């Protein structure tokens, strides 16, 4: 038997702490639990391994009254609100797939099928994505919390692209604009795909039926146990504790992940002729978009824009790129005192992904 906690709308805090509480109370003998809910208020949410102050513009969030939470599952920074229907799957480790991609594939299947039943040609993309025409249409995260395997995700009825870009801590406003543009290209929603927002209650009913189909049994409606309620109180306290929220650490990376294989970064390379600034978007290992600028002299005036055009669609590999830049310099008669093709290559390859 599998439990269903159909919680409708809850506070932003409970939209995260409830599934953590259920996970902490899970034992090998526990039934699996599916939680479905929406947050009443919008908020920013970072992954367990992220250093909050490095990824979120905390000052902006405080000024706008946007709360921030750090969760105990993986993934990156996201903006969450009531236009997203959350599903949270908590199962004893011994009752869930052990391999990570199998875990995602299993528990994302109901969401994939729900989208399809609404008329969208969605598909599961390994390891942890749901896509439509190579665009992401679901946020996901997973982890092991004590004796529970946890997979969380959301159905995107609509999405506030502007606010998502705004809450991020970025190196320049130009980079923020590029992040926003990249999300517009590679992140989609039910509204965009259908031209309207389907009824949320009906969508939820479809999702529940799809979970029942997947798990081969009816889900029985339940409430939090008294132990879970107690644990919830401690999770609420923990997740609002600044010591937890602002814990330092995490991998040092300037890359922002847009979807499964789309990532964007801004970097600077200091060369003898001046700094070279790059905004680079990779799709897989290919340069999907690139903006080259800097504080140096280069002739002709449109050289950098033209070089960007030449590099788009090329593999992000040092040797072929250097040959291409050298060839461009020669073909176009480029003059850039103190800036060589090698400097431009270094700027493009500065940030390893």
């Amino acid at each position, binding site marked *: 038997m599998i439990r269903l906690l159909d919680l409708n709308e809850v506070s932003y805090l409970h939209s995260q702490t409830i599934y953590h509480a259920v996970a902490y109370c899970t034992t090998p003998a526990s039934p699996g639990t599916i939680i479905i809910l929406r947050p009443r208020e919008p908020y920013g949410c970072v*992954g*367990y*391994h992220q250093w909050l102050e490095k990824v979120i513009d905390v000052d902006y969030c405080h000024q706008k009254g946007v709360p921030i939470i750090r969760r*105990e*599952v*993986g*993934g990156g920074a996201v903006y969450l609100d009531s236009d997203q229907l959350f599903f949270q799957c908590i199962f004893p480790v011994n009752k869930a797939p*052990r*391999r*990570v*991609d*199998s*875990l*995602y594939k299993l528990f994302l299947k109901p969401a994939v099928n729900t989208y399809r039943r609404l008329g969208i040609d969605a598909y599961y993309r*390994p*390891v*942890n994505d749901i896509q439509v025409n190579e665009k992401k249409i679901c946020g*996901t*995260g*997973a*982890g*092991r919390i004590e004796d529970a395997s946890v997979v969380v995700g959301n159905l995107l009825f609509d999405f506030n692209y502007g606010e998502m870009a705004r809450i991020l801590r970025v190196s320049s406003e130009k980079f923020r604009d590029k992040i926003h543009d990249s999300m517009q290209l590679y992140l989609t929603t039910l509204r965009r795909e259908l031209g309207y927002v389907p009824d949320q209650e009906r969508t939820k009913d479809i999702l529940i039926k799809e979970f029942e189909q997947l798990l081969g049994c009816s889900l029985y409606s339940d409430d939090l146990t008294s132990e879970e309620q107690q644990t919830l109180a401690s999770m609420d306290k923990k997740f609002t504790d600044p010591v937890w929220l602002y814990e330092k*650490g*995490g*991998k*040092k990376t300037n890359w922002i992940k847009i979807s499964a294989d789309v990532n964007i970064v801004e970097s600077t390379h200091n060369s003898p002729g001046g700094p070279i600034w790059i905004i680079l978007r990779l799709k897989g290992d290919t340069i999907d978009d690139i903006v080259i600028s800097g504080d140096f002299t280069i002739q002709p005036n449109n050289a950098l824009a033209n070089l960007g055009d030449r590099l788009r669609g090329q593999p992000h590999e040092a040797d072929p790129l250097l040959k291409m830049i050298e060839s461009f310099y020669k073909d176009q008669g480029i003059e850039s005192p103190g800036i060589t093709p090698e400097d431009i290559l270094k700027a493009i390859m500065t940030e390893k992904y």
Partner: protein
Amino acid sequence: MAKYKDVEMPGDLYYFNTDNHVWAKIEEDNKVRCGIDQFGQKAAGTMAYVKFKPPGGKTIKGRPMGTVEAGKYIGPVRAPVNGTILEINQEVRDDPTLINKDSYGKGWIALIEPDNLEEDFKDLIHGEENVQAFLEADYKKYEEEGLFAEEEDK
């Protein structure tokens, strides 16, 4: 060196048979250096993030002393001994893929001052023959159940 297919596990190390496959080495002054072995990193996939208790933090054998993240999945790294963390590998913190690339060298994770080395090492797997048997048995089981991460992940 125990070897099976694409995984090597040095026989002079000790192995904690836990969900992540942790290796442990006794160093000078009986300190314990540990990390995730080649088998563990193969099962997990490309490491994206790591986080460990800081120096001074206590470890409890079998309980998480830190976490790793691969494919947006967070998993625990279980301590092979009871003790106190002396040092965490900052290089791995900055580049978690060292765990994949050099599991027994640059990919070490923590140096621990054990509370009771002899007692805690009693059930760790050690010695060429024992490690070979352990490796083959677990590898075959993982293959049968399809538990290794896809190579594309790396």
